[in-house]
C-alpha cells in the first residue's frame, strides 16, 4: 500500500505556544478507549469562547494546524492525537513538539512538521490574511510551501522514514526475534539476572 508523501490543505493559525495535551484532549474525555467519537473533544474548553480560531466558519474543513513553540507538551495520552485527527487535521506545523506526543502522532499517522519559528509567524500572518490559502507539506523534498514561499522542514531520517513508510512496526521487529532472543541470552549469561528476571 502506497502512502502519500505530500499533503495540501487549508490551515488554522493557532497563535499559541506550549499547547499541552490537557487542552488537546481534556482529562474528562481521556477514558474514551478508541480513536473515534472524538470530534468535539479537541480544545473543548477553549472552544467555549465563540472567538476561538477553530470556531470561525472560514476555518471549517482545514486539515493543517499551525501552532507555536512546544506543541503537545505534557501527558502521554494518545487521545490528544485522536482528537486532532477526528477534527480533520492531517498535519500539525509547529516550531517544536513534545517528544511523546510526536511519537504518538507518528504511530497514528498524524504528521508533525517542525519548522523555524519565523516560518510559523509568517504562516500565521498569511493564513489570517487569506484563510483559504493552500499550504503544502512535501515530505520527499522536506519542504513547506505556501504562496511562492518554500521553507525547509526540520525532520530527521527516522521520523521521515516512519511517515513515508508507516508499515507494521511490530511485524518488522518480530522479523528480528532471533536478535532479541540472542540479546536476552547474552544478558543472562553475563549475570544480569536482576535485569532479566
Amino acid at each position: 500500500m502506497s502512502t502519500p508523501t505530500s499533503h495540501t490543505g487549508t490551515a488554522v493559525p493557532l497563535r499559541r505556544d506550549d499547547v499541552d495535551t490537557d487542552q488537546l484532549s481534556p482529562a474528562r474525555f481521556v477514558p474514551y478507549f478508541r480513536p473515534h467519537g472524538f470530534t468535539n473533544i479537541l480544545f473543548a474548553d477553549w472552544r467555549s469562547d465563540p472567538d476561538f480560531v477553530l470556531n470561525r466558519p472560514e476555518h471549517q474543513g482545514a486539515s493543517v494546524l499551525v501552532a507555536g513553540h512546544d506543541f503537545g507538551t505534557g501527558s502521554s495520552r494518545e487521545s490528544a492525537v485522536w482528537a486532532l485527527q477526528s477534527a480533520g487535521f492531517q498535519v500539525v506545523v509547529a516550531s517544536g513538539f513534545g517528544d511523546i506526543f510526536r511519537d504518538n502522532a507518528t504511530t497514528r499517522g498524524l504528521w508533525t512538521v517542525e519548522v523555524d519559528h519565523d516560518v510559523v509567524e509568517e504562516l500565521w500572518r498569511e493564513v489570517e490574511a487569506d484563510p483559504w490559502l493552500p499550504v503544502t507539506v512535501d515530505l520527499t523534498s522536506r519542504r513547506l510551501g505556501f504562496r511562492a514561499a518554500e521553507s525547509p522542514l526540520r525532520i530527521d531520517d527516522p521520523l521521515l522514514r516512519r511517515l513515508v513508510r508507516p508499515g507494521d512496526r511490530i511485524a518488522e521487529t518480530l522479523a528480528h526475534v532471533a536478535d532479541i532472543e540472542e540479546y536476552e541470552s547474552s544478558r543472562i549469561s553475563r549475570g544480569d539476572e536482576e535485569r532479566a528476571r
Partner: protein
Amino acid sequence: MAKTLAAKLWEDHVVRPLGDGADLLYVDLHVLHEVNTPSAFDDLREAGRTVRRPELTLAVEDHNTPTRDGGQEDLAGRRQRDLIRANCAEFGIRLHRLGDADQGIVHVVVPELGLARPGMTIVCCDSHTSTLGALGVLAFGIGTGQVEHVLATQTLPIHRPKDLAVEVSGVLPDGVTAKDLALTLIARIGTGGGQGSVIEYRGSAVRGLSMEARMTLCNMSVEAGSRAGLIGVDDVTVDYLRARVEALGTGEDLADAESRWREMRSDADARFDDVVRLDGASVRPRVSWGTNPAQNLPLDGRVPSRVDFTSEQEWSSAQRSLAYMGLRPGQSMRDVEVDTVFVGSCTNGRIEDLRETASVLSGRKVADGTRLLIVAGSAAVRRQAVAEGLDEVFREAGADFRTGAGCSMCCGLNEDRLAPGERAASTSNRNFEGRQGRRSRTHLVSPRVAAATAVTGRITAPEDL
C-alpha cells in the same frame, strides 16, 4: 572512550541498530496503568499477538482510583479498571489493584518494590516515568502505540537522544527543596529546553539530595521537555537500594550487583551535547503564576508585566495565562489566596514529602475556608506515615489525609477535582488550564510551601509563619 551515563545505558540495551540513528532498544521492565492501555491490548488481540515477556511487565491501578473511604470511580473509570484487570488476567501480568498492600502511583511503587535498579531500562505509558532515572535507570514515558510494541516484542524502536547536563553547584539553602530546583531549571530553559535530550543532573547540590528528592527532580524532567532524567549512582543510591532489599526481606546478596551499579555514572571526561549551569545557593522557594510549569518565579516575587518579556508573542502568551489565572501584573504572589491545598502525586507524594508537610503543620491549624488534601503516593507510604504519627499531626491540623493512595487531584481523572474557578496550591507537576478540574487554577509549590499556604490560606513560606 569516555561515556555519559545515558550512553552507557543506551548502548547496553541496543538489540540491533535500525539505521538512520534509530536503534531497537531492549526494555527490562514495562509498567502499565489503567488509563492509557486498553487500546494497546485491543490492538494486540486484533493482530493475534501475545505479550512476549509478561514476567517483565507490571501493572498498577492509580490514575482513576478513589482515595477516600467509600470513594467511587465514575463509569468510565470503573470500565478502565475492569479492562486492566481482565487484560492482566488474560496475559498473565502482575497487577497491583486498588486495595492491595503494594498499590499506589506507578512511579512511587516501582522503586519501593526494589524493581528499579541501576543499569535498567524501564518504560511506562506515563510521561513521569522519568522519576526512576534518579536510580541510574534509563526510564521514560511512551505512547499507547509504543505500549503495544513493547508488549509484543519487549523492545522499542527509538531514535537516540542527545545528552544534556544540568550542573548544579554549591548547596541548596535551608528550606529549599528539589521541587524548587526543578522549577528554577524549567523557568530557565523553558518547557521545550530538553526536547530530544536526556537530562543528567550533576554537581554538588544534586549529590547533596536524598534519594526521594532526586526522584522529585528527575520526575519534572518532562516539564522541561526532556523525556528522561538521570542521576549517576553514588552512596546515596546504593544505601537506598540496600535498605529497600532489606525491607523486602528477599535475602539477596548485593555484593556483585553493587559493583555493577557503581559503574552507572558518567565517566569523568565524558562529553555532553549541551550543559546548563545553575548555582544551587541562589535557588529560592518557587511558585508558578501561569498555565505552564515554566511560568514560575520566586515566592517573594511579583506577577510579571510587559517589561519582563522580550517578545510580543511571549507577552501575549503571559497575558492569556494571567487572564485565566485571575492575576494582574505586578501583584505580589504572597497576596494570592487559595481555596485548596493538595499534597501528593508522583512528584511529592513520598514519605519525606509527608514528613516535611507535617513538620510545618505541627501545632498549627489549616485556615478557615481552606481545604488541605493530603494523599500518599502509595499504600506503603501511608502505612509509614501512620507508623510515624504523621496522621495525627494532619488530623489535628484539620487536613483531610486520605486512606487510599493514588494520583488523586494531580490529573483530574478521578473524583478529586477542583470546581470551576477554584484555586489550588499543589505539589503536583502541571499547572495547565483545567488540569485539576475544568476551569481550575493551579499554583505549583513544594510540600513545605503547600503546608504553610494551608495555614494562612494564601501563598506562604514556612518562614513567614
